[in-house]
């Protein structure tokens, strides 16, 4: 600090920073990218370990043996599901009652803002059925949840059946200390959301749902089970939840520990673990796994039923059975034992899961990168914005300083600054508000005038407003002050740089992946922008194109590459899903992009047309 309070040294330091600004920025950017890519390199990561004492050292013996019965139950369930043409509520209620659970149902309905074409639903009406296993001699203060979605068609029958078989087995055990809620939800995430809102008596997403009668205190943890075949080759663990929230790392450790113990192949992001970290393939594999996690987390949607629990401070994960063409098979009994083990260990918990990390990235199930290791990658990118801002500040201040001993008229060019900056800021944000509000509200009008469906109307309106935003604001300062001055755009850029730095910083604190991806594309263009830059480059690095690139990269990573036109269709559906996620579950990515990131980018866009 002495460095800064000494004016001479301060001058020398700022001189150094302004003179070497561009090289430093380039080095920072490259270092940030390299740091991030280095996170997947095994020697730089930590081995996962169980932090929670109550789950680590206690022994649990798995005795579940009715996997075969579960499979025959699955057939029965399937038959009843076909007969009912949806959720066989009565059968489920009876099945749970006969297993000694307290059974309750909850009906709900929700009209989507516009039809969801991926899942073909608009007016959603359904019923959740849940049974509570009351723990003996427990005062109904704590509970665990096991959920299985009742999906249309042939999927997830085995999950529901295994749930019932587990309920029957669990009911006869004396050792439960927490109540266990077995939930079969209809319409996957919508059902889960309705149930969670009913359980906590909140209404944040305008569901119309019946109130719940039976409760079991505060829910400590939840597991969601998805299983569609009698035997599976591997189990996939899904952690990414709403708004990029992750459950406590101990839950992943618990899953991994039991997979090891029972000899079940386990994957994360659908990728098996490899042991050859020192080869190029090994590293690429880990990097791909981590990149997938970053992309999934960044999109802020819930990748399984578990994701909605996280809002309520309930640690949750989804376990998904995968049946591929591998030789190695696992039967339902083993999966049942795995769940039994996990639930029993969760039952042993004395406190909520809190010992381990909440912010992490997983290059494989046995390795993790904690927040302390990945944050510098983002920090290196964010510091570029601050360095550029400092550079601009110094440049803006220098002529004014020189004018002090000379003539005072030199100060005049900066005086209309406030208005020239304020107008683009306001216009950009108004465009952002339009982008946020209009697509959903204008769909009826759009459907009337154009031959498109509602979903297309919404997405195309969004794209239209986005594009219109590019045309709108870039002449305002000329109307105000005639000719755009050099001083003017520099002040605007300074403001926009600081704004972007704050925005990205806050985003990265909550959802690192989203912050990092935005930083990677936005930082180089915003740092180097001058009125002389090509508009094409600017457009190619805009938020919308970032989403498009992410779609392609994601498809590449899950080994399902798509052509340009397929990619475009995917891009459109991603936008509609983003808007739906916001309306249905309260995901914040769409409002963040529409109300903040896009207006901020527009402010930079404004600079292009300054002269």
């Amino acid at each position: 600090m002495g460095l800064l309070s000494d004016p001479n040294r301060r001058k020398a330091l700022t001189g150094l920073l302004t003179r070497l600004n561009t090289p430093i920025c380039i080095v920072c950017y490259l270092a940030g990218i390299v740091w991030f890519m280095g996170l997947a390199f095994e020697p730089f990561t930590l081995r996962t370990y169980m932090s929670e004492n109550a789950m680590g050292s206690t022994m649990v013996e798995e005795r579940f043996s009715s996997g075969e019965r579960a499979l025959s139950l699955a057939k029965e369930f399937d038959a009843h599901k076909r007969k009912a043409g949806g959720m066989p509520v009565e059968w489920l209620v009876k099945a749970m009652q006969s297993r000694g659970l307290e059974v309750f149902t909850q009906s709900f309905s929700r009209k989507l803002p516009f039809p969801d074409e991926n899942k073909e639903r608009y007016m959603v009406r359904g019923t959740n059925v849940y049974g509570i296993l009351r723990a003996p001699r427990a005062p109904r203060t704590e509970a665990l949840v096991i959920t299985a979605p009742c999906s249309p068609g042939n999927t997830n029958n085995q999950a529901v059946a295994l749930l019932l078989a587990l309920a029957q087995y669990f009911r006869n055990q004396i050792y439960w200390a927490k109540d266990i809620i077995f939930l079969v939800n209809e319409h996957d995430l919508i059902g889960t959301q309705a149930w969670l809102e009913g359980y906590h008596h909140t209404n944040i997403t305008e569901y119309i749902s019946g109130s719940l009668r039976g409760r079991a205190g505060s829910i400590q943890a939840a597991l969601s089970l998805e299983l569609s075949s009698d035997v599976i080759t591997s189990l996939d663990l899904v952690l990414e939840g709403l708004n990029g929230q992750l459950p406590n790392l101990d839950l992943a450790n618990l899953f991994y520990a039991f997979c090891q113990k029972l000899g079940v192949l386990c994957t994360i992001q659908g990728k098996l673990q490899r042991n050859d970290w020192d080869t190029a393939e090994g590293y690429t594999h880990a990097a791909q796994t981590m990149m997938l996690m970053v992309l999934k987390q960044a999109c802020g949607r819930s990748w399984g039923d578990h994701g909605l629990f996280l809002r309520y401070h309930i640690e949750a994960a989804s376990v998904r059975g995968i049946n591929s063409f591998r030789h190695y098979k696992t039967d339902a009994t083993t999966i049942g034992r795995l769940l039994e083990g996990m639930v029993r260990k969760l039952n042993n918990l004395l406190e909520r899961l809190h010992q381990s990390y909440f912010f992490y990235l997983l290059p494989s199930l046995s390795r993790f990168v904690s927040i302390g290791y990945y944050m510098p990658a983002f920090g290196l990118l964010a510091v570029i914005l601050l360095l550029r801002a400092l550079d601009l500040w110094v440049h803006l201040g220098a002529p004014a300083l020189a004018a002090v001993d000379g003539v005072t008229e030199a100060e005049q060019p900066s005086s209309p600054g406030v208005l020239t900056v304020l107008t683009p800021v306001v216009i950009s944000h108004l465009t952002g508000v339009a982008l946020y509000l209009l697509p959903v509200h204008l769909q009826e009008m759009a459907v009337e005038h154009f031959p498109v469906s509602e979903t297309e109307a919404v997405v195309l309106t969004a794209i239209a407003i986005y594009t219109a935003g590019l045309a709108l604001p870039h002449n305002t300062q000329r109307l105000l002050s005639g000719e755009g001055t050099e001083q003017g755009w520099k002040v605007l850029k300074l403001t926009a740089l600081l704004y972007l730095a704050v925005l990205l910083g806050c985003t990265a604190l909550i959802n690192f992946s989203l912050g990092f991806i935005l930083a990677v594309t936005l930082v180089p263009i915003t740092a180097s922008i001058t009125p002389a830059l090509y508009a094409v480059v600017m457009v190619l690095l805009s938020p919308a194109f970032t989403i498009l690139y992410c779609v392609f990269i994601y498809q590449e990573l899950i080994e399902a590459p798509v052509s340009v036109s397929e990619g475009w269709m995917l891009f459109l559906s991603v936008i509609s899903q983003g808007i739906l996620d916001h309306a249905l579950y309260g995901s914040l990515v769409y409002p963040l992009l529409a109300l903040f990131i896009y207006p901020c980018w527009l402010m930079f866009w404004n600079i292009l047309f300054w002269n």
Partner: protein
Amino acid sequence: FRFPSPIGHISTCPSLIGQCCKTHPGSFQEELVIRPLHSGDIYASFQFRTLWDTDFLQEGQKVSHYRLFPKSLGQVLSKFSVRELHISFTQGFWRTMQWGQPFIPSPPGAELWVWFHDTVSDVDGNWKELTNVLSGIFCASLNFIDLTNTVQPSASFKPLGLGNATDHRFLRYATLPREIVCTENLTPWKKLLPCGSKAGLAVLMKSEKLFHSSFHSQAVHIRPICQQCSSKAWELRQTLNVVFDLHTSGQGKKEWSLFKMFSRTLTEACPLASSSKVYVDITDNPEGELFELSPATPLLGQAVVLGDRRTYSVYDLSRAETFGQLRSFNLLLRWKGDSGDMLRPLLHAERYVAGFGLQTGEIHTVIYNNHPYRAFPVLLMDSVPWYLQLYIHTLTVTSKSRDNKPSYIHYQPAKDRHRPHLLEMLIQLPPHSMTEVTVQFERALLKWTEYTPDPNHGFYVGSSVVSALVPSMVAMRTNFTQDQPLFSSFVPVKEESSYFVRVYTEPLLVNLPTPDFSMPYNVICLTCTVVAVGYGSFYNLLTRTFQVDEPSPPLSKRLANLIRRMRGVPLLT
């Protein structure tokens, strides 16, 4: 307690008791009630009553000779001038919807309420000492009862014994919802019995079986009662309620026997007991179509319990023929029917915390009146710890989606770290309705030493208490006589048309904002560094103006200038 005419010979009992009480200063009765529950579970309720015709609260009367009455309790009563004492230890939650009403309800954890004699000057001091002494007697953590969890309810807890004290300054009520009840609490409780666990019904109390159940509750109630209203007598009632689970204890088979439940059979009554009986509730089974009972008994009894007339098979352990040839009594109960749906008890209540996040929340208490056409008032009592800061202006009471204004509200706000909130309300429940009471709260940020060792577990809020006079289906008996079975004579009945019920809701587990205690050192270091270095210097930089300072001239120059000044020539610069 009325007996059908063919078995009238049992009614010689009261005169027997009357005699024994005159010759000895005290009597002891024991009984076990077994009620097969709708759900296939089984409810066993033990009651032991010790009566003592003396008054050790009388001035100048020092009692030192104890016979049946436990000396440890007697001394405590006289030392702390206790008028009435009720203490219960419960592990589990009574499932009203499946099991109906219990004979004597109790909340999960420990509950203690005491009426002190109105001559006591320092009630709080007595209370504190009393809880510590009881904590020693019952091996429980009652010493955690202090002023922060003690309240003085104005209406919910009236004395159950003789005298109608109404000044609630002499009443103290506290619950410890977190208290775990186990064998170490059972052993001292059994020691209070005259026969211990050596003889009589108490031999059934094997802890490995009693704690292998769905619900376990043991209690001690001491009160002065009116012994034929000529003299005052002290009554000590010890109750133990246990519910065995069909699936975990019964292996799913609907077959119960004393041996299966308690891994013991009965061989004799307690020799000190004036009456020793086993009752089995057969009301739903008049023709034996629901379950089969063996050995069969010719004795039938009827009692009006909780607004309903129930029929019981009675087994008198003081008669040798009860034990039969094998000299052992093992009651066998075999279900034939199917277990039914959930019950609809007339009064039922539940409670939960709504909302998410660690800043605010809302407590919802839902009270159900399932009576088809009668409305009745209930007293709701809530005692909430200070660290949930209630916003009492957000209190709403709604029945049938309409505002329901309580006719009486007694609210005592909390004082941080000194006193809990106390909220008592008299609410009229419309017939066949659901009444919802909601109040919002904010979670307090505790000082770091105030957190429990396991702060991420959450903090408990004790059960709220709903007390009500529920309209009775049959006429209740108002005269308090000796010949009633113990389970039907605990709460005094004032009028025929209604009976008293107390319902406890579930306790709440609330998470408070909790700092990360796992790395306090890092946190403290980082915060201090950031604050000291970062803030201090930036503040300095932002508030000061800097000017280039002329460097002071070297010594030689200053000397030269000094000489020049003396000479009067211009100075060097």
